[in-house]
């Protein structure tokens, strides 16, 4: 029977079906971090259980770490205690930890792919909703809560109901200045913040095939922002090329066997999806969000919509009041105070290269604070090796050390109340970047141009 890519991987990981339609589902790789794991380790201990497959877990510290002076003790006592707790737990249970100072430390969804931990056909989970990032490799990857972290630790399995399947096809050549981030912001603006709830999404089409792995990761990363359980893309030559030679990638004969298997991972021609959507990628323009959920996105040069009543009106009005915007107004010309380039969505080397290429020889606007937080130690080292650190510094950008940083503002990297921040991250929720902060989500290219101009502009007029 014809199967979707999702079904092929799902079916391979069914340990057994149980009464009531639930599945005991096997997890190949488990990523953990300091924020959502301490209660899981405690629960495990309280029940007299231990880790079932220690070697299938990798840990890093990312959500709650400072992005300056990582060689020194963490100043905030609560943050320090949480990071220390991760270190203690990993030592006690024998989990591989890439903690602060380690050459592999970084945002959990950046290090998985760059170390070759993420591979096609696997199932991966993490106590973080952006685990969907790993789906770019043709992986079933999704975020879980802390109780489920405990379940995977104890049994290497989860009890799940099978999501429905959706395929989103994006065909066509991208316009100048349009990137992977614009594609996904566009798709989310069309579906809304809950439009894919209950679904696992496969992204397909020539515009997706044409993306680099890093671009595909950006797309899959934001699947959760339209409510999807996860997103995935069939692996191809671009995928294999990226994985090959990485630290934990299959080697030698295993590599050939792996690729032979990975080449079977695609949706059969006549596979049936529960929902199918198609978009013309050549019509997509550089995007920006104007509201307080990622579904509230528009082309940068368009105007904020005007809503005529309906159940959404209260939330829409509340959102615009928070942002200080009016229905129907254009965002062009709005002064911006902060630019944040980072997060599991856009903090990889290609993102840093895009920014550096644009700002080379230019200066950020005097009133803008521009910070750029690499996704990992390896990204940081690569940026330095390429001299991007100097280009960014000369343009007035501050290059920090790796972590989640101002994406969720758990550490000191906060945007002040009322200030506008163009951010390459994934969420523009109220207070996400600090109490009262106003976030506008955009691509690294839009962020770089905004930093230089100091206001929102029609970027198509500014392309090099």
């Amino acid at each position, binding site marked *: 029977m014809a199967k979707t890519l999702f079904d092929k991987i799902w079916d391979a990981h069914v*340990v057994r079906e149980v009464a009531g339609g639930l599945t005991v589902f096997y997890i190949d790789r488990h990523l953990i971090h300091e924020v959502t794991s301490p209660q899981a380790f405690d629960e495990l201990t309280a029940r007299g259980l231990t880790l079932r497959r220690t070697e299938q877990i990798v840990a890093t510290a990312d959500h709650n770490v400072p992005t300056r002076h990582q060689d020194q003790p963490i100043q905030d006592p609560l943050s320090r205690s949480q990071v220390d707790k991760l270190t203690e737990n990993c030592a006690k249970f024998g989990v591989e930890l890439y903690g602060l100072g380690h050459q592999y430390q970084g945002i959990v969804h950046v290090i998985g792919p760059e170390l070759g931990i993420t591979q096609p056909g696997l199932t991966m989970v993490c106590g*973080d*909703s952006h685990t969907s990032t790993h789906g770019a490799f043709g992986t079933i990857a999704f975020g879980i809560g802390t109780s*489920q972290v405990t379940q995977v630790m104890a049994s290497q399995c989860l009890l799940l109901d099978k999501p429905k399947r959706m395929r989103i096809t994006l065909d066509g050549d991208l316009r100048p200045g349009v990137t992977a981030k614009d594609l996904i912001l566009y798709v989310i603006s069309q579906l809304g913040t809950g439009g894919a*709830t209950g679904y696992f999404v496969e992204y397909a089409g020539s515009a997706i095939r044409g993306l680099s792995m890093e671009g595909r990761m950006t797309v899959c990363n934001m699947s959760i922002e339209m409510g999807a359980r996860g997103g995935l893309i069939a692996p191809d030559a671009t995928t294999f090329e990226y994985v090959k030679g990485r630290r934990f990638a299959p080697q030698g004969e295993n590599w050939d066997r792996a690729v032979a298997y990975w080449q079977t991972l695609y949706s059969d021609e006549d596979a049936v999806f529960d929902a199918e959507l198609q978009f013309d990628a050549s019509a997509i323009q550089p995007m920006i969000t104007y509201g307080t959920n990622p579904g509230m996105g528009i082309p940068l040069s368009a105007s904020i919509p005007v809503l005529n009543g309906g159940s959404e009106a*209260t939330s829409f009005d509340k959102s615009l009041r928070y942002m200080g915007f009016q229905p129907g107004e254009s965002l062009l010309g709005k002064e911006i105070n902060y630019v944040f380039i980072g997060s599991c969505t856009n903090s990889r080397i290609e993102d840093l290269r895009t920014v550096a290429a644009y700002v080379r020889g230019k200066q950020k606007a005097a009133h803008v604070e521009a910070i750029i937080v690499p996704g990992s130690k390896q990204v940081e080292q690569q940026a330095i090796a390429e001299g991007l650190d100097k280009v960014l510094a000369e343009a007035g950008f501050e290059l920090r050390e790796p972590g989640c940083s101002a994406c*969720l503002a758990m550490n000191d990297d906060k945007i002040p109340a009322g200030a506008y921040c163009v951010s390459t991250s994934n969420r523009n929720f109220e207070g*996400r970047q600090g109490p*009262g902060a106003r976030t506008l989500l955009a691509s690294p290219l839009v962020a770089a141009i905004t930093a230089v101009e100091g206001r929102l502009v029609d970027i198509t007029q500014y392309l090099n």
Partner: protein
Amino acid sequence: MEKFQTLRSGVVPLPIENVDTDQIIPARFLKATTREGFGANLFADWRYTADGQPKPDFVLNDARYQGHKILLAGKNFGCGSSREHAAWALYDAGFRVVISSYFADIFRGNALNTGLLPLQVSDEVLQGLFEVVDQDPQAALMVDLQTQTLTVPGWAEVIHFELDPYKKECLINGYDDIDFLISQEAAITAFEQQRSWVF
């Protein structure tokens, strides 16, 4: 996990759609390493001013709704981050049921694993419930998990709600998934012998 069988309680109305988990419990409060105490910071940025004073216009600070254990919220409740702390914060603040016309997937699972019932109703029923509470802030709803019914004062018919039968049993008995998964050890071990896709 505590057992949940029936609950009769007043409601706290929050007619906002797409309430994300960053609102339910902002990230800066996630630094604790235990499950307890998150209730004090539930909806912190909507509930308190920057200097920690209660905002009088936020529903949790409205004396009429104090002690109510059912949260009534707009559609797509719990979207965003996977933080189970959101469910813990609601539970810690005394809530045992959240009613909405749909829930984000991860939140729904986290709530069920916390002993908090995510009770899904139609958009029309949700609207009707907001009207009931608007007219009588003390209106008490009756939730019966065994019969999967919601009884609303003044309504001729009870509302039936759906819930996975396994999850229903778990809530009624206070069981969680770990015990069940551990009991599958033999099947899991047998499965692991034939994992051919790990290279």
